[in-house]
């Protein structure tokens, strides 16, 4: 193509026009061009066919990929693939070098697949990474090793490994092979933006690939982040079996390999560097290092800059710091897992990759890990923390958990229900949970959800002809599913319960009402509007007789709860009064029921603005719950009361109520979502009373109590709180970090309700804007945003904030301010400089600057002026500046008030929301 300047200009203009159009419009634009322009433009567009994608990042990549002849003009031809060999690798066409290692070079290559025998080019292009043995280093030894790698690869076929495609010999008899070209990023880099759990799941996937290789007696021996790419679909792929060995020809030890590069040393196992026998244990060690890196972002010891001899000593002798030293969020169990894998003695590590991966999976599932000494109390504690509610519903004795030291408040609460549950129902549940009992099957991978699902058909058979039994069992199942957050299963259990009720001929009675309460409250948690509708249709206004009373009260309590949730306070309060009336009529003296009523009445009093009545009802509620000897319900009521006291700014009383509530949870060893919510509310109090560090710690603790895979909403609220607290503390980096971490999860979890992550984005934007007020944070911000990959979204949000700033004026001021800072650094800053600047600033800024920028400038200026305070006139000036800065701060607060309010209001309304008392439906007599 002639690209003389005249022709260039013309073509460039056409190209610009073409790029302004998309898809078909562009095609038809090119079509109507006269030749030869059309041909030229088509060629240019083809050169960069990927460039039609708006994503510029991909554009650049495409450009690079289209560069065909790289490497050929390099200076050191000797070792390179000679031109004569180009294209000789089968029908493959080599493009660019992807990298080189001890044995050979790796190229990016393509081949056009032949569709049929006609010889015509097929319509797809296959991509591959082709590895070719170095010409000059093709000794018989490297040749043998190269061929062995090829053999190993050809024998492997696993989705987690790059697939072997083709192989052969060049004209000069050097062997080559083609393997699947994996486009992706290093696993450690990819993992940075993930939650701990997501990182662990990624790691478990890697283990599967390694385990697969081990089953074929192949040890990888070079597992490190650089050898594991995460592809576009988010799956890790293990590459480079270059130093892998087959276990039965192990004589070719690692120490004979020419791979002593620092990076490999960094990931070498003790037995590798000491020349001892390398077995699967070595891969397990390297997986341990990988896990360490994924969790902490760092390696246990940095070996880059130290002498080889010392490095070897470190690898063989020095016990690495626990991962939690680098990342305080890593629990002791995970420390134990990693440290087991990193044991210096191969025999003390996990025996197989599979057991290693299983332990990680156990950790993810919240089950006891094997890496920790298996004391009975440990296993029990771990199990109870995760499944305290279930254990209480089923009954501890059924699980043979004789650890009598553990007192569960829920156990007390449920005692009466269990006592009345029939022996047959108890037996069915016991059977189901025996399977999930941590003592029953050591090493079994069964989870409770699994156990339930598996037991379902069996349960159905056993209750088939006994509606009462079906009713009892399904009631328990509903409660269990509720406790593990499987709401769909929970609702179907309650539906089955309702069916059983109608089989019992109980149209409006207690069996029916108990089912209504269960199903209704499950609905209220997912769709309160629907729940209200359901209650409207099914709730009788009053119980028919004393027989139904307890069930009716339970359902009515749920009903009012649902009405409160949808903010139908009028109807909710009416429902409360009916409940009070009914309780009067039947003379209900049950302390817990009275306590609940008092709580509802307190809510009604609040809406009636009757503070005295409200306080009285709260006190009643607490008194009743104390009398009910029901610590669990008491704890919840206390925390609600605490929230109420906080609202009245009676912080001391609020705090002591919180502390009492939390102490109950602590004593019971119950680490469940309700406790998490209480701690979160307490953190709110700490925050309001200025104890920000404590508030942050409490919020973090509450987050650790939430199961990673469920309770998205609670997690989200907690994280948003954390963002706010850390931000107010001035720890912008951490605030941002939390946002970065939560955002992808929130977007995923709230796919149906984009308003939620949107809120998060807005708050993200705010941190961003404010963050720029701190110059050191600004750099970190840019870095972080890049890392989190949602820059586009952020910018979109930022644009909507609409800063009325004259950019030129702002830039000018910043540049001048920079100059002043320079001068200050060089100690040549004079009073005249400052005066000059202040004069200019005062004339310019108010017109163009928003409050935030004013604040930033004044802040800088105040620090500049501080050392020059000697003459009184200047002191005056400085004080004025300080005052201005303060008022600018106030302005900022005002400017962002709606946003802050929105977030605060949102948080207040959820975090401070009163919890409904956990409510076991009454059992039949």
């Amino acid at each position, binding site marked *: *193509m002639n*690209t003389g*300047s005249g022709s*260039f*200009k013309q073509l*460039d203009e056409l*190209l*610009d026009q073409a*790029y*302004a159009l998309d898809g078909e419009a562009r095609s038809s634009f090119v079509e109507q061009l006269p030749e030869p322009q059309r041909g030229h433009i088509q060629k*240019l*567009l083809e*050169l*960069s066919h990927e*460039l039609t994608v*708006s994503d*510029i*990042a991909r*554009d*650049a*990549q495409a*450009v*690079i990929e*289209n*560069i*065909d*002849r*790289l*490497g050929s*003009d*390099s*200076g*050191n031809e000797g070792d390179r693939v000679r031109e004569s060999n180009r294209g000789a690798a089968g029908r493959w066409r080599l493009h*660019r*070098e*992807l*990298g*080189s290692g001890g044995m050979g070079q790796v190229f990016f290559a393509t081949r056009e697949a032949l569709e049929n025998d006609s010889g015509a080019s097929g319509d797809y292009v296959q991509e591959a990474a082709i590895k070719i043995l170095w010409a000059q280093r093709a000794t018989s030894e490297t040749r043998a090793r190269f061929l062995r790698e090829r053999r190993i690869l050809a024998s492997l076929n696993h989705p987690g490994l790059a697939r072997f495609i083709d192989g052969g010999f060049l004209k000069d008899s050097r062997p080559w092979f083609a393997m699947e070209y994996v486009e992706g990023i290093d696993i450690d880099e990819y993992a940075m933006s993930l939650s701990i759990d997501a990182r662990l799941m990624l790691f478990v996937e890697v283990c599967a690939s390694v385990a697969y290789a081990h089953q074929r007696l192949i040890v990888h021996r070079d597992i490190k982040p650089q050898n594991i790419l995460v592809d576009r679909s988010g799956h890790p792929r293990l590459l480079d079996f270059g130093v892998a060995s087959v276990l039965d020809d192990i004589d070719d030890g690692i120490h004979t390999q020419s791979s002593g590069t620092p990076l490999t040393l960094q990931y070498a196992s003790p037995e590798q560097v000491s020349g001892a026998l390398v077995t699967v244990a070595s891969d397990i060690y390297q997986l341990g290092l990988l896990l360490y890196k994924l969790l902490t972002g760092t390696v246990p010891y940095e070996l880059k800059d130290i002498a080889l001899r010392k490095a070897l000593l470190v690898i063989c002798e020095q016990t690495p710091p626990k991962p939690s030293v680098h990342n305080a969020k890593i629990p002791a169990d995970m420390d134990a897992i990693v440290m087991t894998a990193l044991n210096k003695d191969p025999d003390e590590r996990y025996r197989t990759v599979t057991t290693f991966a299983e332990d990680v999976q156990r950790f993810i599932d919240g089950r006891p890990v094997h890496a920790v000494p298996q004391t009975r109390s440990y296993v029990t504690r771990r199990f109870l923390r995760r499944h305290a509610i279930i254990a209480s519903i089923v009954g501890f004795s059924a699980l043979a958990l004789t650890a009598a030291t553990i007192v569960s408040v829920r156990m007390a609460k449920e005692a009466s229900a269990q006592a009345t549950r029939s022996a047959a129902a108890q037996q069915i549940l016991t059977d189901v949970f025996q399977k999930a009992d941590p003592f029953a099957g050591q090493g079994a991978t069964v989870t409770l959800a699994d156990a339930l699902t598996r037991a379902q058909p069996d349960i159905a058979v056993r209750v088939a002809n006994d509606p009462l039994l079906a009713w009892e069992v399904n009631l328990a199942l509903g409660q269990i599913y509720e406790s593990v957050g499987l709401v769909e299963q929970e609702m179907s259990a309650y539906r089955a319960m309702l069916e059983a009720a109608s089989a019992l001929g109980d149209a409006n009675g207690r069996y029916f009402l108990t089912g209504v309460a269960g199903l209704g409250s499950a609905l209220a948690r997912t769709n309160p509007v629907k729940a209200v509708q359901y209650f409207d249709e099914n709730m009788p206004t009053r119980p028919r007789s004393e027989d139904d009373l307890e069930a009716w009260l339970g359902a009515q309590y749920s009903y009012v709860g649902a009405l409160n949730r949808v903010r139908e306070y009028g109807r909710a309060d009416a429902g409360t009064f009916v409940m009070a009336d009914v309780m009067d009529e039947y003379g209900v003296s049950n302390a817990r029921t009275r306590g609940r009523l008092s709580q509802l009445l307190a809510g009604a009093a609040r809406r009636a603005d009757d503070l005295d009545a409200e306080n009285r009802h709260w006190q009643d509620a607490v008194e009743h719950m104390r009398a009910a000897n029901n610590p669990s319900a008491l704890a919840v009521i206390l925390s609600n009361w605490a929230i109420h006291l906080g609202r009245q700014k009676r912080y001391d009383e609020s705090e002591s109520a919180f502390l009492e509530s939390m102490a109950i949870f602590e004593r019971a060893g119950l680490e469940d979502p309700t406790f998490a919510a209480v701690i979160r509310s307490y953190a709110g109090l700490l925050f309001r009373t200025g104890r920000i560090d404590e508030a942050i710690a409490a919020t973090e603790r509450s987050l650790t109590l939430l199961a990673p895979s469920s309770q998205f909403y609670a997690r989200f609220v907690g994280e948003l709180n954390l963002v706010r607290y850390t931000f107010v503390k001035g720890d912008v980096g951490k605030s941002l970090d939390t946002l970065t971490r939560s955002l992808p999860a929130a977007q995923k979890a709230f796919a149906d309700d984009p308003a939620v992550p949107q809120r998060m984005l807005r708050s993200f934007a705010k941190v961003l804007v404010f963050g720029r007020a701190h110059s050191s944070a600004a*750099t970190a911000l840019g870095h972080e945003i*890049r890392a989190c990959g949602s*820059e586009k979204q952020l*910018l979109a949000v930022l644009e909507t904030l609409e800063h009325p700033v004259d*950019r030129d004026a702002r*830039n*000018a001021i910043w*540049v*001048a301010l*920079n*100059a002043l*800072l*320079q001068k200050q650094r060089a100690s040549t800053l004079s009073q005249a400089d400052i005066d000059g600047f202040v004069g*200019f600033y005062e004339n310019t800024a108010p017109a163009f600057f928003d409050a935030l920028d004013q604040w930033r400038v004044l802040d800088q200026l105040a620090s500049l002026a501080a050392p020059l305070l000697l003459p009184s006139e200047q002191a005056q000036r400085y004080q004025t500046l300080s005052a201005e800065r303060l008022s600018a701060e106030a302005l900022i607060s005002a400017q962002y008030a709606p946003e802050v309010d929105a977030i605060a209001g949102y948080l207040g309304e959820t975090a401070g929301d009163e919890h409904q008392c956990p409510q076991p439906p009454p059992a039949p007599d």
Partner: protein
Amino acid sequence: MLLRRYAEGKSESLNEVVALVYDELRQMAHQHLRRSQIGQHVDTTVLVHEAYEKLLQGKTQQLQDRRHFFAVASRAMRQIVVDMYRADRAAKRGGGAISVTLTGSQMLELDSPEQLVTVHQALETLAEHNRELVETLDMACFGGLSNEQIAELSDCNVRSVQRKLQRAQTWLTHFMSQA
């Protein structure tokens, strides 16, 4: 104001203006070094000083505005990197595999060090035809400026910056394939 004075053409202002954006340039260099694997032994400040001196040497250039300044600085950056690469290659003569990755927000990824020289030459060729396109690409890939910043400096919208980059990349590919 200094900026205004230099915009009005007062020659001594160039020196001052460069000093003023010293921090910004330094940041550019930081970004640059972080993204390239070249010479991890080189102090960032050294790199900045090199850019700074280059700018002063090119006194004949007339810096009309901020955009021009960044364009010049970004181009200087490119020159610095290429020089460093060449020096490194001369020193090691086929030795260590230096991997060069220039990743601005536009991600011009280079897969082999030789490519840097090829890209550099192709850009010089393109500059003979259309200087503006090369400036835009320089600012994006070597100056570490975002599309939004370039748009702001050039007083145009982001979309048109993207199109310029597309064209620049297309032509770059073209000239590289011609090389």
